[in-house]
């Protein structure tokens, strides 16, 4: 069963890396500014999922499935804490990803209104036409 778990988890990781490639193509090669914004959100989300996957304790062949990093007893003993530290996933990437999601929301809203202003000034959202206007 361990090889099958490794195979399935590798499918997940490879599809995430392919997502990074496709969204980078969307950011750099597509002409529309709105398509660039969509690809940028996909890229940042994929980076977040990769960070969470790095902190996932149950990389293939775990003894038991991992648990979320939440202590459910109010006054944990030493044994509880030892069991928790062995079983729970890493909470540090989750804290970083929470910050990254909020900052990404602010950046996306800024880019949306920047694109709206570009359309109001130049009448298009195509970067090729905007570049020709500026040139």
């Amino acid at each position, binding site marked *: 069963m361990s090889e099958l778990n490794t195979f399935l988890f590798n499918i997940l990781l490879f599809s995430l890396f392919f997502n990074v490639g496709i969204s980078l193509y969307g950011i750099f090669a597509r*002409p529309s500014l*709105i398509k660039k914004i969509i690809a940028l959100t996909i890229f940042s989300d994929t980076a977040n999922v990769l960070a*969470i996957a790095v902190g996932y304790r149950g990389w293939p062949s775990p003894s038991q499935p991992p648990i979320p990093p939440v202590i459910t007893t109010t006054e944990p003993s030493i044994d509880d804490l030892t069991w928790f530290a062995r079983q729970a996933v890493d909470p540090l990437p989750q804290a970083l990803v929470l910050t990254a999601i*909020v900052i990404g929301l602010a950046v996306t809203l800024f880019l949306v209104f920047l694109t709206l202003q570009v359309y109001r000034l130049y009448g298009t959202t195509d970067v090729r036409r905007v570049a*020709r206007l500026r040139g």
Partner: protein
Amino acid sequence: MIELDTLTYLFMALAGVVSLIATYLAVLENDLIRAVIFSALQSTVYAILFYLLMAPDIALVYIPVAVGLYPAVVLFLIKKTERSEGDLGGAGGGSE
């Protein structure tokens, strides 16, 4: 008999493949509204993936932001500007 671990990894692999297809369609789609819908599908799959990777708090934050707010804001932007990506093709050549 299939085990719980294998089932979890099976759903993870399925979510990865679906997100790959949705990203491909979202980036290569010419109609921007359909691209936003594919992007929302990809965000939904990522929310399931966060839950499977034992980060339920991230899933709780991610669902309203990435499934609700991003498509709403981008749809607002598309409504205010232009719907099609406008494939210029050869028109953007060296006509400086």
